C-alpha cells in the first residue's frame, strides 16, 4: 500500500512537472503574443532525465527498502524537478549541467540504498569519513577555485566540474556526531538529573565533538563561508540538544550567533553589509540591498497566481539560480506556488523527524534527526533571507537550487533518511524524552509558517506599491512587449510614437527639439518629462477599464496597450520657436492667456532622446544641462519683472509693506509650483522677496493676466487621452484660475506697455543671475484683440534684449496670423 502511495505521489509530481514544461515551451508565444516565435524545447531534456531517474530511484526504494517512508522521495523529487526546470528557464546551459548533476545525485541515492542497511560502516569509520571531508575542505584553502572566476574560492576542481567540499562535509559531520553521541550517551538514562549544563560542558566525552566541529568551523571562517559556518554551528547545537534534551544548548548557541552577528556588524565588512541590507534595505536599493530588493520585487510581481513559468522576469534577480531560486519560483508560480513549496519542505522535514523517532537504534535516530536539522536549518536560512526575515546568507535551497555539491549531498542525505525509515518489523529504540523532537517540529513548522506569511505580505499586501517603484525594471521591460501610447500635438500630428512589434517595440521621437519637454523613457535611464508624468496613460494602466488592466495582468503580467495623449503644443509654432532659439541658451513659452494651454514650450540646448542610451551618461555631466527643461525647471531672478507687476498693482504714493508684497507675490503664483502634468521646479519658499527665483512658466502665467483681464490662468499641456471606450476624454486642469489684478488695472498696464504696431504689449529687461546676465522678454496681446489672448515669455542666458524681443514678437505675430 505504501508502494502504491509513493507511485501515486510521484505520478502527481510528474504531472506537475509535465504541465510546467508545456507552459515553459509555450512561454515565448505568450510574451510576444504571436505563434510566430521559436518555442523553448531544451528543458524537455531535463524533464525526461528527471522522469527516468526518478523511476529508477523509485524502483530501488521498492526493492531495497520496501517499508520506507512513502513521502520522502516524492517530496524531494518534486522539489528537485521543480528546481531543475526553473534553472532551465533561467539559464538553459546551467539547466544541462544541473541535469548532469541530478543524474550523478540519483546514482548516489541508488548506491547509498544498496549499502548494508544497518549503516554500521558509517558508525565505525566516522573519524576517517570526517577527516576526509575536512581534508577536502582544507584543500580549498590552497587549491580553491570559484567557477565564476571571482568571489570566495570554496570549490575544488576545474573545467566544468567543481565540487564544494563544505557541502558533503555537513553530512559527514552530522554522521560523525550521531555516531559519537550514540556510542557515548547512555540512551536509557533518566533525562534530567544526570547532566547539569555545567557538568555537560565539562564532560570530557564532548571534547572530541568540540574539536571536530571547531575544526570545521575554523576552516569555513577562514574561507569566509559564513552562511555554511552558521549552518554547522546550529546543526551541532540541535544535535546536542536532541541527544541530551538540554534546551539551553541551542538557546546559548543561538544567542552566541546573534552576539557574533552584532560584533561582526561593527568589525567585519561582509557581515555589516548583510545586516544593514537586512535591517534597512530601502536606504540603498541600488547598492548594498540591490539583491534583496530585487528578490522582493520578484515575489511582489508574482502576486497570488504568479506570472506563469517562463512569463515573468526572474532573471532580473541576481544569482536567481542558486541563492534566490525561491524568489524566481515565487514570481512565476505566485503565492500559491510559494506556499506549496514551503509545504513540500514541511512534509520532508516532518517525515524526517518521524523517521528519526521510529529509528531502530540511537545512532540511526540521531543521524536521521541530524539530517533533518541540516535540511531544515539550511532551507529556513535561505528562505528567510529571500523574504527579508533573516539576514542574507549565501547558501543553497536543498534539492532546488543550482549546484552539484548541494544536490549530491541532499540526495545522499535523502537516501540515508529513506534507509532509516525502512525499519521493517524492528521496534523503535527507547527514547529518553520526546520533548526535543516535539520542540523541533514546532520550531520548523513555525519557521515555515513565518515564511508563508511573509510571502503573502510581499506578494499581496505590499506587492502593488512595491511594483510602482522606479527601480522595478519590469515596467520598462513590458514596454518592449506592449505598445506605448503616442504623444500628439494639438492638430493630432504625431510627435512621439512606439514602433515595432511585440518583443521589439522601440520609442521614436519624431521631433527631437522638444526633448526637454517630452523627456524620454528608457529601460536604463528611467523616465523624464511628459513621458514620466503621463506614464500611466501612455502605459495603459489609467484610462483603460479596470477589468482590461487586470485581465492583461493575469494573462501577460503587463498592462494593456497604452493610450495616445494629445498635447496643447502647436507643432508649427514650436518648429518656428526652436528654429529661432537654435544655438542659444534659453527658454521660450507661448501660452493661450485665457485657457492656459501651452502652445510652445522650448528649452535650449536640447538633446536627442532617441540616443539617450548612448548619450545619457555624457548628458548627465554636461555643463549646459540639456536634460533640464529650462522653461519649467529653470529658476531665474525675476528682477524688473517683479517691479513692473508690482507697479501695476500698487500706487507709487503708498508703497506696500512687506506683508502686502508677499501676499502679492503669492497672487502672482511665484511661491507655488504650477500645477500641470509636467515636471516643474520647486518654487521659492513663501516670504522670499529679494532672493526670489521664478521659472519662465511661472512668469508666463503671471504675464498672461495682463492679456486676460487680470486673471492668471490654470496651465495645461496635456489636453486629452484617447480611451478605448469613450474616445477622446478631456484631461482637466490641475488648478483653478486666480485673479491677480482688476480688469481695469490689467488693461491699463497692458496699454501702457503697448508697442508701436498697436497689436501687443511688451516688456524687456536684463538681470544679473549669479555670474551671468540674463534677458527676460514678456509680451502679449492687447485687451482689444478679438482672437484668443496670447502671452509669450523669452528667456536668454545672455544679455541680448534685441534678440529676445525679435524672437518673442516674431512668434507672437506668427501665432496671431495663424489663428
Amino acid at each position, binding site marked *: 500500500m505504501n508502494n502504491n502511495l509513493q507511485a501515486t505521489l510521484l505520478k502527481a509530481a510528474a504531472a506537475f512537472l509535465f504541465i510546467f514544461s508545456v507552459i515553459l515551451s509555450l512561454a515565448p508565444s505568450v510574451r510576444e503574443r504571436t505563434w510566430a516565435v521559436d518555442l523553448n524545447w531544451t528543458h524537455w531534456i531535463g524533464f525526461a532525465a528527471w522522469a527516468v531517474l526518478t523511476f529508477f530511484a523509485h524502483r530501488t526504494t521498492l526493492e531495497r527498502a520496501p517499508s520506507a517512508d512513502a513521502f520522502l522521495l516524492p517530496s524531494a523529487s518534486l522539489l528537485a524537478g521543480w528546481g531543475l526546470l526553473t534553472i532551465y528557464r533561467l539559464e538553459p546551459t546551467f539547466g544541462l549541467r544541473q541535469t548532469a548533476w541530478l543524474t550523478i545525485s540519483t546514482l548516489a541515492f541508488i548506491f547509498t540504498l544498496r549499502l548494508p542497511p544497518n549503516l554500521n560502516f558509517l558508525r565505525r569509520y566516522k573519524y576517517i569519513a570526517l577527516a576526509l571531508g575536512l581534508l577536502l575542505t582544507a584543500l580549498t584553502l590552497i587549491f580553491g577555485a570559484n567557477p565564476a572566476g571571482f568571489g570566495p574560492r570554496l570549490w575544488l576542481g576545474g573545467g566544468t566540474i567543481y565540487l564544494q567540499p563544505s557541502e558533503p562535509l555537513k553530512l559527514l559531520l552530522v554522521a560523525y556526531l550521531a555516531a559519537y553521541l550514540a556510542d557515548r550517551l547512555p540512551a536509557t538514562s533518566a533525562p534530567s538529573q544526570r547532566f547539569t549544563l555545567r557538568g555537560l560542558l565539562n564532560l570530557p566525552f564532548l571534547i572530541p565533538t568540540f574539536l571536530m566541529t571547531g575544526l570545521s568551523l575554523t576552516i569555513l571562517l577562514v574561507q569566509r563561508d559564513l552562511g555554511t559556518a552558521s549552518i554547522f554551528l546550529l546543526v551541532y547545537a540541535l544535535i546536542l540538544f536532541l541527544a541530551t534534551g538540554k534546551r539551553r544548548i541551542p538557546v546559548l548557541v543561538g544567542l552566541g550567533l546573534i552576539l557574533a552577528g552584532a560584533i561582526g556588524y561593527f568589525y567585519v565588512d561582509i557581515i555589516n553589509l548583510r545586516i544593514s541590507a537586512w535591517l534597512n534595505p530601502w536606504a540603498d536599493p541600488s547598492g548594498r540591498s540591490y539583491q534583496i530588493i530585487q528578490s522582493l520585487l520578484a515575489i511582489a510581481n508574482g502576486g497570488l497566481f504568479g506570472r*506563469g513559468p517562463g512569463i515573468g522576469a526572474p532573471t532580473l534577480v541576481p544569482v536567481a539560480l542558486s541563492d534566490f531560486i525561491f524568489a524566481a519560483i515565487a514570481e512565476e508560480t505566485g503565492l500559491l506556488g510559494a506556499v506549496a513549496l514551503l509545504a513540500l519542505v514541511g512534509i520532508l522535514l516532518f517525515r524526517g523527524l518521524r523517521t528519526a523517532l521510529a529509528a531502530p537504534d540511537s545512532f540511526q535516530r540521531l543521524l536521521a534527526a541530524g539530517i533533518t536539522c541540516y535540511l531544515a536549518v539550511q532551507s529556513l536560512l535561505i528562505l528567510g533571507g529571500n523574504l527579508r526575515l533573516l539576514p542574507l546568507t549565501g547558501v543553497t535551497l536543498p534539492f532546488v537550487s543550482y549546484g552539484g555539491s548541494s544536490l549530491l549531498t541532499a540526495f545522499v542525505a535523502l537516501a540515508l533518511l529513506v534507509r532509516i525509515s525502512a525499519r521493517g518489523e524492528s521496534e523503535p529504540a527507547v527514547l529518553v524524552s520526546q520533548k526535543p523532537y516535539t520542540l523541533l517540529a514546532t520550531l520548523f513548522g513555525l519557521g515555515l509558517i513565518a515564511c508563508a506569511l511573509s510571502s503573502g505580505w510581499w506578494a499581496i499586501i505590499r506587492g502593488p506599491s512595491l511594483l510602482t517603484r522606479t527601480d522595478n525594471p519590469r515596467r520598462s521591460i513590458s514596454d518592449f512587449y506592449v505598445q506605448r501610447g503616442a504623444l500628439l500635438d494639438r492638430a493630432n500630428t504625431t510627435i512621439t510614437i512606439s514602433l515595432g512589434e511585440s518583443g521589439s517595440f522601440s520609442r521614436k521621437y519624431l521631433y527631437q527639439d522638444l526633448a526637454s519637454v517630452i523627456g524620454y523613457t528608457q529601460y536604463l535611464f528611467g523616465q523624464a518629462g511628459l513621458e514620466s508624468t503621463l506614464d500611466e496613460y501612455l502605459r495603459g494602466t489609467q484610462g483603460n477599464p479596470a477589468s482590461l488592466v487586470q485581465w492583461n495582468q493575469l494573462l501577460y503580467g503587463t498592462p494593456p496597450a497604452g493610450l495616445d495623449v494629445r498635447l496643447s503644443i502647436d507643432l508649427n509654432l514650436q518648429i518656428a520657436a526652436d528654429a529661432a532659439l537654435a544655438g542659444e541658451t534659453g527658454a521660450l513659452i507661448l501660452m493661450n492667456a485665457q485657457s492656459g494651454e501651452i502652445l510652445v514650450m522650448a528649452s535650449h540646448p536640447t538633446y536627442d532622446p532617441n540616443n539617450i542610451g548612448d548619450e545619457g551618461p555624457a548628458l548627465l555631466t554636461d555643463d549646459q544641462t540639456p536634460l533640464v527643461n529650462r522653461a519649467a525647471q529653470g529658476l531665474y531672478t525675476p528682477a524688473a519683472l517683479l517691479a513692473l507687476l508690482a507697479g501695476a498693482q500698487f500706487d507709487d504714493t503708498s508703497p506696500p509693506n512687506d506683508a502686502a508684497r508677499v501676499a502679492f507675490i503669492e497672487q502672482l503664483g511665484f511661491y507655488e509650483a504650477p500645477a500641470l502634468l509636467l515636471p516643474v521646479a520647486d518654487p521659492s519658499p513663501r516670504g522670499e522677496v529679494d532672493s526670489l527665483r521664478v521659472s519662465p512658466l511661472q512668469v508666463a502665467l503671471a504675464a498672461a493676466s495682463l492679456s486676460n483681464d487680470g486673471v492668471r490662468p490654470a496651465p495645461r499641456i496635456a489636453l486629452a487621452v484617447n480611451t478605448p471606450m469613450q474616445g477622446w476624454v478631456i484631461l482637466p486642469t490641475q488648478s483653478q484660475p486666480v485673479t491677480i489684478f482688476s480688469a481695469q488695472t490689467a488693461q491699463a498696464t497692458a496699454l501702457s506697455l503697448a508697442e508701436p504696431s498697436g497689436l501687443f504689449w511688451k516688456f524687456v529687461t536684463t538681470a544679473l543671475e549669479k555670474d551671468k546676465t540674463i534677458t527676460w522678454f514678456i509680451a502679449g496681446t492687447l485687451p482689444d484683440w478679438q482672437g484668443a489672448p496670447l502671452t509669450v515669455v523669452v528667456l536668454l542666458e545672455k544679455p541680448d534684449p534685441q534678440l529676445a524681443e525679435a524672437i518673442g514678437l516674431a512668434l507672437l505675430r506668427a501665432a496671431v496670423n495663424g489663428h
Partner: protein
Amino acid sequence: MSATLVLILRALLAASLYIFLLWAFIAMWRGLRDQGLSLANRRIPSLDLSIQIEDGPLTRRTFQHAEIFIGRDPACDVALEDNSISARHAHLSYHHGQWWLEDLASTNGTRLNQSLLQVPTVLVSGDQIECGHSLIIVSIGASIEASPTLRLPIES
C-alpha cells in the same frame, strides 16, 4: 490566443501541485488513523497471576492490558495488603513481544525465581515473583484480541 491556453494550463499546474499536497496530507492522516487503530487492536497475550499473600489463600487474576503495577497502594492493579511491600513495588509491562518485570526501586526488593531482580527481565510461564512476603506465580496465556471488530456478511 496562446495566453488563454497558457492561462488554462497555469490553472492545471496549480491544481496538480495541490493535488500532490492534498493526496500527501490525506495519506498522512490515514497513516495516523491506521497506526492508532493497529495500536488499539494490538494483540496482547493475557497474563494470569496466581497471588498468595504471606500464607493466605491462592487467588487467581487475569490481566489483558499492557501495564500492570504491583504495590501496597490501592490504585495499583495488583494491590497487596502486605506491610513488607512498597507502595509501588514492581511493574509488569508488555513490549517488544514479551512480558517484562521491573522493580520500581522498592524497599525490600523483588525476587524472580529466588534471585533478586536487578534489571528488567523477560517473564515466562511458571516464573515465581516474590514481593516482600507475597508470592505471585506467572502464567502467560494465548493471544487474544482486545476489541476486535467483526464484519458480518450482509445477506441480501
